[in-house]
């Protein structure tokens, strides 16, 4: 029973990382209508930016480094969209071509990380932490911060989408780009803001993944990308709230299953859930007609 509660605790942490990354990916997909296969590498690069600020040069506190590292990733995402992806998206009406470009971008970013930081495992500079007993759960202070940050970010995204003009414009564009434009919405600016938010969330997700796992490697984001896809598809592609729910479901299922089966199989659990969802409800568990 103890092992079960321990795994539930880890499940919350994984679900938190997954929720941040899945919502970031869904935001970007909702606006551009193509899947960014470089998203996992955005996460890794954001994590390495945090590493540079925390352990290599400025020796900032990990959470301050995370904020600046993630913002840097957000800015880089905007530039990559502006100068690389947007020209392709304008030229080709089929999103398939841009998806291929994101595959290429993924390989480029991965190799840039390898060439700068090498293949070895890196660690953030963080004080050693005592494990806290919270009810039946055993969690560190940093893991609690990761969970709190995820909850705050989900709440922030919800409030932005529902109550601000920017959020409504993003949902309008996701719903019908042509109508959004003729209603006076500057879709190019909305796309830029979305890439900034999505890139920043990738940076945060990559960094907290590094904190939660205790190390970072160049391919960590790529491996995690498949779990993110599982969460997004299970929740309902393009639905922000579906991505949140899918993240909780997949995160909990993978970690709790590790209490009962070989932990090496836990990613397979995510894909079993994905396959069952696609067979039973192909549009995702929490999807509604249309997006938003």
């Amino acid at each position, binding site marked *: 029973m103890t092992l079960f509660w321990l795994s539930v605790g880890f499940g919350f942490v994984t679900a938190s990382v997954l929720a941040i990354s899945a919502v970031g990916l869904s935001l970007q997909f909702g606006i551009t209508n193509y899947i960014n296969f470089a998203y996992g590498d955005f996460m890794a690069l954001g994590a390495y930016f945090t590493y540079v600020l925390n352990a290599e040069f400025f020796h900032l506190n990990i959470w301050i480094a995370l904020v600046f590292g993630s913002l840097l990733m957000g800015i880089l995402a905007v530039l990559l969209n502006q100068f690389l992806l947007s020209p392709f998206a304008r030229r080709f009406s089929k999103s398939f071509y841009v998806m291929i470009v994101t595959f290429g971008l993924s390989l480029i970013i991965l190799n840039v990380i390898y060439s700068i930081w090498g293949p070895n495992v890196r660690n953030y500079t963080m004080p050693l932490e005592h494990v806290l007993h919270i009810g039946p759960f055993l969690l560190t202070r940093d893991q609690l911060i990761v969970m709190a940050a995820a909850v705050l970010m989900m709440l922030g995204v919800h409030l932005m989408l529902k109550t*601000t003009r*920017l959020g*409504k414009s993003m*949902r309008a564009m996701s*719903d019908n780009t*042509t*109508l959004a434009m003729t*209603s006076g919405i500057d879709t190019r600016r909305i796309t830029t*803001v979305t890439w900034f938010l999505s890139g920043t969330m990738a940076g945060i997700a990559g960094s907290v993944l590094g904190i939660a796992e205790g190390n970072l490697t160049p391919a960590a984001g790529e491996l995690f990308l498949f779990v993110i896809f599982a969460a997004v598809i299970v929740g309902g592609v393009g639905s922000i709230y579906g991505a949140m729910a899918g993240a909780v479901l997949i995160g909990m299922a993978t970690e709790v299953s590790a209490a009962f089966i070989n932990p090496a199989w836990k990613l397979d659990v995510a894909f079993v859930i994905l396959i069952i969802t696609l067979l039973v409800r192909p549009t995702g568990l929490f999807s509604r007609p249309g997006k938003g």
Partner: protein
Amino acid sequence: MAERNEPVAEGVFALRCQELKKSFQGVMAVTGATFDVPQGMITALIGPNGAGKTTVVNILSGMMKSDSGHMQIGSTDVTNWESHKIARMGLMRTFQLSRELGGLTVLENLLVAPQHQSGESLFNIFFRPGRAKREERENTERALEILNTYGLYDLRDKRSRELSGGQKKLLEIARGVMASPKILLLDEPMAGVNPALIDRIGGYIMDLKAQGMTIVMVEHNLNVVEKICDHVIVLAEGRTLATGRLSDLRANEEVVHAYLGEVINASTTR
């Protein structure tokens, strides 16, 4: 529906098009549309099928770029501007087949319409939240008033994709009005609408004119044109055939030959 009786203003125009041309893969759809839309009036854009009306409307709203020619809103040359910039200049449009932001509620459909809002900027959301919130509150109050006027108040929290065809027509007009445009471009607002609603929509259009808005409407229903439009532009084969009052155009042989005869014959044989 009230009858119109104001004279057409001479020389004061809200919108001016000069020699607009557009072809699709060598086929000329618009071969020289030249017309002025008088300010504060209701102008009808009529013509037979294939006359290029929808193409002209798409060019005017920035959804299509013209191959040549010029377009002016007030004194500003807006030729081939992007559609969001044209909307921000004060020209809003509706569509022949109603389009709505289906995933948004009826109220939210109106809340995306006002232009130049501080809540559009991420910076303002974080650093000037009070201003953005105040604007959003004021917009919500105004949107609810407009929904009330158009009989959609009780549907405000419903997703707009769930509305009926007639309700969607009203929502499109309401969304256009919410943007406080100088010019409202209505693409067949009466198409597919029951006679009672035609009268209601006609009344709303007259009210908008009374508030000083310039209306341009593509319309096939000549009874409606007769009743509410001050000025008529006839397009045929992609060019402007004639402009003026419908009563005067009925005496124009070219117009009768190209369009009115066809419509009158169609209505008398029904």
